[in-house]
């Protein structure tokens, strides 16, 4: 429209020469358009401007282009926006501020540390010996009479009371698994309960790898007391660069767990710190094992019984004791090495192949009665009785920062294959069990080399055997056929009392552990990567009368 207006203007300028005001009607005549009041004034101005320039410099030709100003046509349909405005302002009242400073001049620092509970000390009260003597004189006769009568009494023969509802069957309480590990085809190599009995941890790895493997694996823990326990989602997961072969929870710290790797390292994790769980590690030094670590055990320190050390057992023939020192390093404090030449000769063993002098150890169990006595299971199939206090130096060329000693004191007669698990009885100081690849469980007494009894549990390998912590005559064994067998020597010494089928396809069960706090629970891990927590019937958790005596009888009668 603007261009049109300009065009109009240029055509109109010629006849509009000399005409001032006349140009307006001229312009409007040619193309009438509606002009607002301001618009007509603007058009007039423009017209006069054009006319003036037309008259300015001489007389232009009849048709000449001139450039006029821009014609502006204000919009009709958009009204000029009037606005009504008001100005208001507000101001907050001034804020009163005051500055004050205070400084504590005296400070006191105090630390509180709970210590592990020591043995309770009973107060010794003062007493009057004369009155005590008089009292004893009065009651002695009665008591002696009752004691004799009781000794001869048959009143309670065979009498027993049931205090709890007897539970007849063994049920699977939980089936726990970690899908990423199961997806990689990892096996559960070890399970462990923590000191409070509420957390079960399992280690993933592979037990059938012959080669060096760079398999990443996991340590997973489930808190069974937590509401909303999700069986596929552990409450703590630790990723480990190498396969974990064994696991052991700390005896007093509920969240510390030690593990031994396929690479020979020993690590300690704190599961309560999800962002950085690694507490201590041995690293790969000259001292570390050169073969997979098959078992780790926590041991109390001899002088400070609430500090603990880690003992690791591997097939390179070394048994090493580690201590956690600052900066996350596990340092070797003591070490033992087993060489064939130094084994006690009380049992005739097969001659080892030439060149091999180390005795590979695969399992360890400490006696509950003598803290320095332990039993080692070996690849040669013979258990060894060893002592932490042994002094003789080991004839080995393996490098080590501490002198290695030879711990073996007694050799027991061998199994038909490597021993994968040993367990010392918590109720009898001399009895221990060993299970090996020949499918047999041997019950040994520390006093003689031949086993007291040998039970054939399975045609396949046996991977783990454990005594029950509450019943002196009960033990459990994990077999390569996929079942967990519970033996009650009181009922039958030939066949298992209960055989629990853990895996459906017969893949082996590699590890099992009883829960010492909740004694009806038994955890077992298998080759499919699942950990099943079994609830045992009450007959496995309640001690019958006189079981300890029966165990003693067992130890003595069969030996003769």
């Amino acid at each position, binding site marked *: 429209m603007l261009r049109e207006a300009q065009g109009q203007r240029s055509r109109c300028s010629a006849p509009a020469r000399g005409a001032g005001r006349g140009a307006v009607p001229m312009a409007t005549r040619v193309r009438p358009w509606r002009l607002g009041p301001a618009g007509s004034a603007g058009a007039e101005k423009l017209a006069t401007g054009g006319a003036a320039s037309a008259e300015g410099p001489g007389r232009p030709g009849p048709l000449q282009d001139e450039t006029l100003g821009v014609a502006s046509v204000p919009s009709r349909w958009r009204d000029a926006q009037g606005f009504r405005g008001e100005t208001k302002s507000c101001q907050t009242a001034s804020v009163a501020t005051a500055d004050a400073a205070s400084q504590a001049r005296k400070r006191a620092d105090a630390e509180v540390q709970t210590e592990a509970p020591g043995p309770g000390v009973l107060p010794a009260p003062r*007493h009057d010996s004369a009155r005590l003597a008089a009292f004893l*004189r009065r009651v002695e006769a009665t008591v002696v009479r009752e004691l004799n009568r009781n000794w001869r009494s048959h009143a309670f023969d065979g009498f027993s009371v049931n205090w709890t509802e007897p539970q007849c069957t063994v049920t699977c309480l939980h089936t726990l698994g970690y899908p990423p590990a199961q997806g990689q085809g990892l096996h559960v190599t070890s399970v462990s309960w923590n000191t409070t009995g509420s957390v079960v941890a399992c280690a993933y790895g592979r037990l059938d790898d012959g080669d060096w493997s760079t398999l990443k694996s996991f340590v997973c823990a489930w808190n069974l007391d937590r509401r909303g326990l999700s069986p596929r989602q552990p409450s703590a997961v630790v990723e480990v660069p190498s396969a974990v072969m064994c696991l052991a929870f700390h005896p007093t710290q509920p969240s510390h767990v030690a593990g031994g790797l396929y690479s020979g390292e020993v690590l300690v994790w704190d599961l309560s710190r999800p962002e950085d769980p690694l507490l201590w590690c041995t690293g790969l030094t000259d001292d570390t094992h050169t073969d997979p670590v098959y078992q780790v055990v926590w041991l109390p320190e001899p002088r400070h019984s609430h500090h603990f050390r880690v003992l690791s057992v591997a097939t390179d023939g070394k048994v090493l004791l580690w201590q956690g020192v600052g900066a996350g390093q596990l340092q070797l404090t003591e070490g033992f090495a087993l060489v064939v030449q130094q084994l006690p000769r009380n049992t005739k063993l097969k001659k080892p192949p030439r060149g091999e002098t180390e005795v590979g150890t695969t399992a360890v169990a400490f006696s509950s009665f003598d803290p320095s006595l332990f039993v080692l299971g070996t690849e040669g199939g013979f258990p060894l009785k060893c002592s932490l206090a042994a002094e003789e130096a080991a004839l080995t060329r393996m490098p080590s920062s501490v002198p290695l000693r030879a711990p073996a004191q007694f050799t027991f007669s061998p199994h038909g294959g490597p021993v994968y698990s040993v367990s010392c009885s918590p109720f009898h100081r001399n009895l221990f069990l060993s299970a090996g690849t020949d499918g047999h469980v041997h019950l040994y007494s520390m006093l003689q080399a031949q086993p007291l009894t040998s039970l054939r549990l399975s045609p396949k390998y046996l991977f783990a055997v454990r005594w029950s912590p509450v019943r002196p005559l009960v033990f459990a064994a994990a077999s390569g056929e996929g079942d967990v067998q519970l033996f009650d020597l009181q009922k039958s010494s030939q066949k298992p009392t209960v055989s629990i089928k853990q895996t459906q396809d017969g893949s082996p069960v590699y590890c099992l552990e009883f829960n010492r706090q909740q004694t009806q629970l038994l955890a077992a891990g298998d080759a499919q990567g699942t950990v099943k927590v079994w609830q045992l019937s009450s007959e496995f958790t309640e001690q019958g009368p006189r079981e300890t005596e029966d165990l003693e009888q067992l130890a003595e009668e069969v030996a003769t």
Partner: protein
Amino acid sequence: MPGPALSRVHGLFLSLVPSLEVEETLERLQSQKGVQGIMVANTEGIPIKSTMDDPTTARYAKLTCNLKARSTVHTSDPQNDFTFLRIRSKKNEIMVAPDKDYFLIVIQNPTESATLWAPSVIT
């Protein structure tokens, strides 16, 4: 065995040294058949003398604090009084002989005539 006159003198001597008599009585009781342990505690449950180790002693000492036997017997028949308590448990038998100031607790392990376990055959 000393004759009656000599034992009377012996007893007289011991009554002059009461602590020796206490020890001797406890030894005699301990040597009875099947006795596992003996303890003397006062009415508050604090053990005074014991032949067992500390944790076991502490466990049995709590027995006397909670003993309601006297009140049970006495309230049911005021003429009656509590003289002796025998508790038979799965593992052993606990005997309590009371007094105004002290309790004597004896733990005995009585035999059972039948043995429950038969030897296995070595396969």
